[in-house]
């Protein structure tokens, strides 16, 4: 086993060994297509696979950003990202080395979900602002600790639930929150089903992949190519399946429309089917009903129309990406007044984060919002796993009718990792 590690200790024990290519002279120039150095936000990327690679492309092209380092436990991805950035970009296997860089202001975290909390908390401790992909966390406890870290260290945090920055979602939620369909009684979140898999024998990890570090705080298992990279989301050790993958997006909009950011449902119950063959172990078909204190229900299901449909006595609003329909049909184009709830926010999700890094305001999907949305997803997953209706205290974050369910609030980290 390797030495026990904390990010804090790592910073200093390895400081002497670090030879990171600091690039102050280049930053100071402020030439070409970039803003002057004192206006640029320096950035590091933790995880540069599918989503991280996408974010990297956007940030490399942003004149207000300078990417100084990338990190990935896969050598090929790491080197490819480094080459993509070019210049003096550094590449690290271990994210703690990246966080140790004092010249990096901010980090984009696009690791598998089981790393989100640890990297976010360590980044906050290291004084970085954070953009973290959804789903925000692997457990409820992690989400709460992430809130603590962001607040304790005064960091700017954006959850990667980019639907909040979508004009159609903003209009939909503004209409709902302004009472245009009356008091909402039901919300349907159609998120599609999860996949199943076959079997694949375990094997040695491919060269260049640090499998032990990929697993990090998750229980140790032998490498299996079905577990890694994109497919991690179909394993409960690393993610929550489709319920956190797409559920985080749509439950987030449902929470927003119900004005429940920072809060949540009080009852959760429903059914779900888990695979009985193959390696994937997350739920693949389901219907779960969350009941809020005022009796409003949120039904998250694998079937039905994709998107979020708010239903009230005076009509309905159905929204999905690039899609907004209402009844009455004229409603969707209604221009809301100053006394209404207007949730419009221009500039895009990443740019909102960058703007807030400068203004030190909270972005549109601040940590507390991302946390309460992912908690809904976790509650749904726990209720399905336990196969019974659960009662939840959204203030104290405890189940009140099933002590066994409280054992699911957190999951122990594999030593030496800890929060």
């Amino acid at each position, binding site marked *: 086993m390797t030495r026990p590690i904390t990010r804090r200790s790592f910073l200093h024990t390895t400081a002497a060994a670090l030879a990171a290519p600091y690039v102050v002279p280049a930053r100071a120039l402020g030439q070409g297509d970039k803003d002057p150095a004192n206006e640029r936000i320096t950035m590091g990327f933790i995880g540069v696979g599918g989503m991280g690679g996408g974010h990297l492309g956007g940030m490399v092209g942003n004149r207000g950003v300078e990417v100084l380092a990338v990190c990935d436990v896969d050598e090929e991805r790491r080197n490819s990202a480094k080459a993509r950035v070019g210049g003096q970009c550094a590449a690290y296997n271990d994210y703690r080395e990246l966080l140790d860089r004092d010249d990096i202001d901010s980090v984009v975290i696009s690791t598998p979900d089981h790393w989100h909390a640890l990297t976010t908390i360590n980044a906050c401790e290291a004084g970085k602002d954070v953009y973290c992909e959804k789903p925000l966390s692997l457990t409820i406890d992690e989400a709460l600790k992430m809130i603590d870290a962001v607040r304790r260290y005064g960091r700017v945090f954006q959850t990667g639930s980019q639907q909040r920055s979508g004009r159609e979602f903003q209009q939909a939620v503004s209409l709902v929150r302004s009472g245009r369909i009356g008091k909402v009684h039901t919300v349907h979140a159609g998120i599609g089903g999860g996949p199943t898999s076959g079997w694949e024998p375990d094997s040695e990890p491919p060269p260049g992949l640090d499998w032990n570090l990929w697993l990090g705080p998750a229980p140790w298992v032998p490498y299996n190519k079905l577990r890694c990279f994109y497919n991690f989301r179909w394993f409960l050790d690393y993610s929550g399946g489709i319920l956190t993958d797409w559920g985080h997006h749509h439950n987030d909009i449902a929470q927003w429309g119900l004005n429940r950011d920072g809060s949540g449902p009080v009852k959760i119950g429903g059914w779900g089917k888990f695979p009985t063959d193959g390696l994937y172990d997350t739920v693949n078909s389901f219907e779960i009903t969350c009941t809020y204190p005022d009796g409003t229900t949120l039904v998250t299901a694998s079937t039905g129309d994709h998107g979020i449909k708010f239903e009230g006595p005076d009509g309905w609003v159905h929204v999905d990406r690039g899609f907004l329909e209402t009844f009455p049909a004229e409603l969707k184009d209604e221009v809301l007044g100053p006394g209404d709830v207007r949730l419009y926010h221009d500039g895009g999700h990443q740019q909102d984060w960058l703007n807030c890094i400068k203004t*030190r305001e909270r972005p549109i999907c601040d940590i507390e919002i991302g946390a309460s949305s992912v908690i809904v997803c976790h509650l749904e997953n726990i209720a399905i796993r336990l196969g019974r209706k659960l009662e939840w205290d959204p203030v104290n974050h405890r189940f009140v009718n099933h*002590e066994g369910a409280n054992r699911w609030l957190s999951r122990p980290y594999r030593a030496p990792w800890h929060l």
Partner: protein
Amino acid sequence: MVTRTVCRIITALVLLGTAWAANAQTPQDLLQQLRDDNADRRLEAAQALAPHGPEVMGALAEMLGGEDRRLDLCARLAIQRIAYHAAGPDGAEQREAVAKALGEIATSNKPLQTRVFAVQQLALCGGDESLPLLWDMLMFQPEMHEAARSALIRMPGRGPVETLERAVFEVGDPEKEVGLLNALAARASMDMYAIGVKGLEDNDERVRIAALNLLAHVPEAAGAELMRSALQKGSPAEKAAARAALIDLGHTLLANDQPSAAQSLFLELSHSADAGKRAAGIAGLGRTGGPGALARLMPATFETDPVVHGAVVEALIALPGQKVTEALAQALSYTGPDQPPPVGLFIRVLGERRDPAAVPALVGVLEGGSADLHLEALRALGKIGAGDADTARVILATAPGGSDDLLDAAEGALARMPSEEVTQAIAASAGDADPKVRALALRSLGYRPGAALLIDVLLRARGDADEGVRLAAVRSLGRLRDADTVLALVPLLDPPGPVADAAQQALSRFTDPSATADLVAAAKDPDSSPTARAGILRALTPREDKTLIDLFSTAAADSDTAVAVAGLEGLSRLQDAATAPAFVARIHDENPDVRRAAVRGYLAIAEATEKEQGASALAIYQEALAMDIDAAEKQTALRGIGRLADVDSLPIVEPYLADARLKGAAAEAALPIALKLRAAGDNDRAIALCRKVVEATRDRRVLRDAARCLREMGIDLRLAAERGCITNWWVLGPFPNRERATKNDFVPVGERIDLTKTVRDGDQTLAWKYAPVDDPMGLLDFERTVARMDNCGAYAYAEVESDRDQDVLLKFGSDDSVFCWLNGERAHAWDGNRGWGEDQDTVKAHLKAGTNTVLCKVINGGAQWSLSVRITDPDGKPLVLKQRTP
């Protein structure tokens, strides 16, 4: 008789009972069902075994860890359900027995992963009875140490914690001590202080760091002194750990009802030279509250470090207590000798604090502050949502002289201020001499339901001389939806204009049955003007209420144009076949507006009913085409005929193939007819028609289908080839995993491809496959030719002959990423997500005389997956080059 009836009932009950018994599954049945081939039945069995834990655990244990992976998985699922059940309120009696059985699996000779699985389940349902077993694993079974440690963290109660405490200094291995100390930190309590202190005395730095982490979570203020000592004397790593521990300790103390101790710690941190520490201290003060915190935070508003400054703002927003609000509010009017406070910042903070106590100070800003602060103050008032009548009056007096933003903020603030008193003050301003004030007041009243007075005010304002004021009144009446105002809005529908439009929009919001009834009555009222009646009908249209059919039908027949059009439009929205006569009656109307509305409605009915009533829909389409109507309606009719593929309609459709405005829609209509002709064996007519379709349209789908139809009849138009497209491809794939497929080369990209060679990728052996393109735009569809698959990639390969060396343009369209090698050299790369489009990328290239190889790798993220490559000369003229074919 009675006896016989009773006997029958008893017999029925017995039979029912027998049937139930026959259907009821025993645990043995369920165990067997875990082997069922049906996935749902396996899952059903695993779930149904939950309450039978003690009885079936032995049998399930036998299924674990064997070669049959599916059976192992199903057994695990069943055991998980048993563990969850045992941990729940219904399983208390079984819990110990289940835990014991799990312990037996954990200590069996099963594979390590199976034993670890058992301990993981024990963590979910085990109790103190499992502690000896876990202790043994923790201390004496290295391979099970981590599983036991994890289980003890997760298990509730004092017992597991005591086991961890006992193990820390007996385990005798610094690495494990660290893990155990961190485990204790996750379950920290006051009595662990001594353990933390002892840990700090350890020789191993890693243990001392873990001890600092533990002390950070123990609610003992004395720990701070130990951390300070580590900050001074420790190694660099210990100093860093101590710094973080001090911050965490402050929050631990706060969470354990020691705010004073927490505050003194945060105050200390807030004066640190290190900006990060200072920000953390300030953030902590924001949570502790108290006078000390405020005294520190006020001067900190001058901090220049942006992170610290941001922390100050957040802290001031979060800082509890009305005195904080008062202090901030007082600062707004500070005129002393010292540096003036950042008033704009304080105003924003006061707004975010949502404390009504700030209202007077904000009103003071409106009355005396500079104009640039008015907007901030109004926004803050809007967030607070409080204020009295005087506040409202000040806002009404201040805002109208300013910008649109200011008016917007004022309206928001007035809208959110509660109380009848405020409503009255706003209502009084509705009589102000300044129309801007009147309009602002009236708009604000629209957000204040429940006050009878304001309805009168709004109704009075309908007659205001100023149009802006009238509009404001009408819009507010629409927002408030007071049932008594429905009929008062109706007269505003006439004369036409902005106010009438606003009135109609307002009335459309009154959706309750009584309002609908009022509107229907008004629409029927002979005294209502035609313009008003039309407005009412349009207001009723959005609710799509079929009970209004009669009303709309009557209106549709009205002699007034506006009424008739509104009636026809209302009916059209309902798409009810029974209303067709109402449209028929007007489709030849002399009035073009009426005629147009009738035709649209008529076509809408045809579209809605064509599946069930094709013949009548066809008649409608034909009739519409024969009329003098707009191009848009003719397109609708043509497309309808196309959907119905009526051969007899060809003489009607065909002339439109030459009509510049309608030939696209005509082609859509003609193609299905051509297909039908071909199916009937009338190839001559089908060919002639297909040729006309190809000439008439640029629609890719129509072109493709027409070309295919022609090809099947022996005529190859080579539409794509004539545009310079590569149409003779060989494809190879799929290669799963987008990222992997992007980064790796699975064929020798620098060489001429040997199409006879297979490619091995994991378990699959892939061969090149000829995939000629029949798409008129040259689109190669990988979903059809390779696989319908997401997150993957595939190759397309072609060879083209050039009669000379020449510069060319390569034009690519792809869904999603495309990478191209021309003669073994990278010619193009586009990496990202997109839908296919013609000529999305154009690159310069050079063809050599003779054979040129074109290799493309196309990556698919999700859904559609395609490629097109077109070769032109440098001026964009298509080059029709000879291509390799099989």
